[in-house]
């Protein structure tokens, strides 16, 4: 099982693989190598946390302290929330956060719905062209979205959808990789469960809704989380399609709109910290699913 071959989406976690390796027989729990390993690990972790901690520290300084180049963690004037207050009183951050929330949720729901439906069709239903259509969908996974920005933008221009929510949302709902992942999952659900219902005369949709979907909650949750994160953090397309500052998502607003007062380092950091918070909270709540999703399916790899 540990030599399982891999494609982009095959599982690499064997059932029953332990999460935590106890110290091995013959190895002292506090042996020098273990202590050294711990020290290196701690150093790495601190190193990895530092940039973000530094951003937070800067956000709690006064503007003068931040601009002074003082390397200490707390500014000479002491910690303050004035940078946060300034950012929050401008009102932009709320608008952008709301836009991000609403559009990411819409992308997630729509993607989930259409991908699950399509995946079910590929998994269970027979129709002409099934095979080659599936091949086309899989092949399209390799298409980098960056290649399509010109024709997509042109399309949105033509339909007068520049600077609209739907112009932002719709191109993001096409995620062939999710169709593939969901199909694989559906394939693994024993057909007997559905057959029983079919024999009782249930329609396909009924079966899909009442049997298959409830059994698929874990994968649906994973797909939902990753699509949501991807949509929330998406920069390129929202950056192109939205010019109206009241419609911008958080990442785009942060990058595009600047203060009339020039570079205000503490405020920039405060804004960045605020923007980071939603997904950090998502991570803390959904840690298990996220870690599992990445590990098992290479989710979020692109």
């Amino acid at each position: 099982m540990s030599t399982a071959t891999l494609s982009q989406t095959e599982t690499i976690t064997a059932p029953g693989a332990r999460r935590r390796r106890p110290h091995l027989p013959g190895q002292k729990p506090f042996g020098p190598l273990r202590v050294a390993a711990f020290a290196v690990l701690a150093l790495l972790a601190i190193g990895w946390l530092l940039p973000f901690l530094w951003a937070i520290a800067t956000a709690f300084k006064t503007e003068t302290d931040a601009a002074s180049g003082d390397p200490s963690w707390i500014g000479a004037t002491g910690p303050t929330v004035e940078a946060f207050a300034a950012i929050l009183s401008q009102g932009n951050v709320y608008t952008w956060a709301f836009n991000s929330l609403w559009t990411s949720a819409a992308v997630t729901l729509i993607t989930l719905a259409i991908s699950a439906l399509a995946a079910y069709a590929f998994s269970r239903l027979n129709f002409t062209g099934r095979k080659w259509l599936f091949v086309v969908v899989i092949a399209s996974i390799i298409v980098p979205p960056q290649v399509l920005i010109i024709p997509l933008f042109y399309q949105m221009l033509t339909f007068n959808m520049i600077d609209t929510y739907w112009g932002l949302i719709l191109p993001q709902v096409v995620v062939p990789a999710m169709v593939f992942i969901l199909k694989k999952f559906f394939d693994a659900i024993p057909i007997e469960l559905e057959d029983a219902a079919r024999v009782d005369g249930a329609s396909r949709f009924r079966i899909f809704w009442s049997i298959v979907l409830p059994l698929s909650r874990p994968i649906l949750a994973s797909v939902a989380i990753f699509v949501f994160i991807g949509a929330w953090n998406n920069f390129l397309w929202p950056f192109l399609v939205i010019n109206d500052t009241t419609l911008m998502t958080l990442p785009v607003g942060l990058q595009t709109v600047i203060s009339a007062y020039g570079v205000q380092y503490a405020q920039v950091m405060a804004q960045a910290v605020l923007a980071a918070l939603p997904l950090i909270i998502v991570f803390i709540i959904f840690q298990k699913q996220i870690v599992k999703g990445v590990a098992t399916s290479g989710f979020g790899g692109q």
Partner: protein
Amino acid sequence: MTPPLDLSRRQFLTASSLAAGAALLAGCAPGQVSASDTQTLQFWHLLSGGDGVTMSSLLDGVNGAQDAYRIRPTVLAWGTPYYTKLAMAGAGGRAPDVAIMHATRVNGWAPGGLLDDWDLDRLADLGVDKSTFPAPIWEKGFVGDRLFSVALDAHPFVMMFNTDVCDAAGVLDTDGRLRETTSPEEFLDQLRTVGGAASGHALSYGYLGDGAQMWRLFYGLYAQHGLAMELPLGGKAVIDKDAAVESLTFMQTLLDGEIAAAQNDYGSAIAEFATGKSGMLFTGVWELRTMQNAGIPFDAAMFPTLYGTPAVYADSHSFVLPHQTNADETKRELTYQFVADLLKGSIGWAEAGHIPAYLPVTESPEYADLIPQAHYAEAAEHVVYDPTAWFTGSGSSFQEDFGAAVQGVLLSGDDPAAAIDRFEARANTMLAQPNPADPEGTWKP
């Protein structure tokens, strides 16, 4: 064989309550104040720093003085990103009601249909016409017969100097003005003398990573040779190599680490002068406010004429009407009124250092009283704009290309002649291309 339910109830509840909380918070955001009939006009500009503060207070003044409209400004980062966003908004048909553009950029844009032109009669009714602007500034707003931009100001590249440091260095004359220098060697000597009295460098000049800054100084020096770079579409760039190399070499001499710091970017040069460490600063007039707020004793003067012909680099901030597919007539009307109001009140803009384009303001007694503005007001007569071409102008890739070609000369001592050749090659490449806003030349001016 049922897979365990991974999403626990606790997780679901936590997530939904947070989402609800966020939605609630969004509702608490300061919304738009809307009196029943006040129209909100979206106004985009790229002014920040000292200028941003001044513009904000001008807008507050305009907003406070009447009820018919309320300006909602958005500030975007100066340079290429601003123009790209504005173009995309114009192409999308949902652009802001009014925006600021540099006068030198309008020429490249107009053929693309991204701008609507100004109605001369409507402007005249509001007291804005040819007679109220200096001729070259008014003319610059035209493409063919149509007026596409109305200038708010002219903002030249100037020299600011710390009066205490320069006084100690003995380079001031009896009325406190900087002694005139008329050749590069004289100027370098003056700088070295100032350097002796300054606690830091003699001169602050920020250029690192900033093509616009490099171009501003360069082109002023080049134009002082009595030359103007020509960029005829479909032809070859006309550049006097000797003058160009001479100007660039002079810049290189300045950045020897003694006269000026070898690698300053824009922000640190400003900071160096504003904290009183250096004797002089090369910058645009737009930093006047910053220096006044810094509280140092300083004055300003037109950039010294080192090569014979008085010339200074300048551009203008101008109002444009981004194209809208369904222009709201009421808002258009109010936009005209806004522009007229702002022009008439632009004495505040003069206080920020710019030379207002609106003559009734510059010819007023209040303006004559403004120091140090009055000390460089003569620059308005000697301004040179970027050579006219679709790819030139402030914040254009032309200025960035210049920076890319010559930064090595200033930062690492590369060969100036080779850099000018590189720059010329790039200009020729651009000239060989049609204006991409109108590749088939279908637009009629």
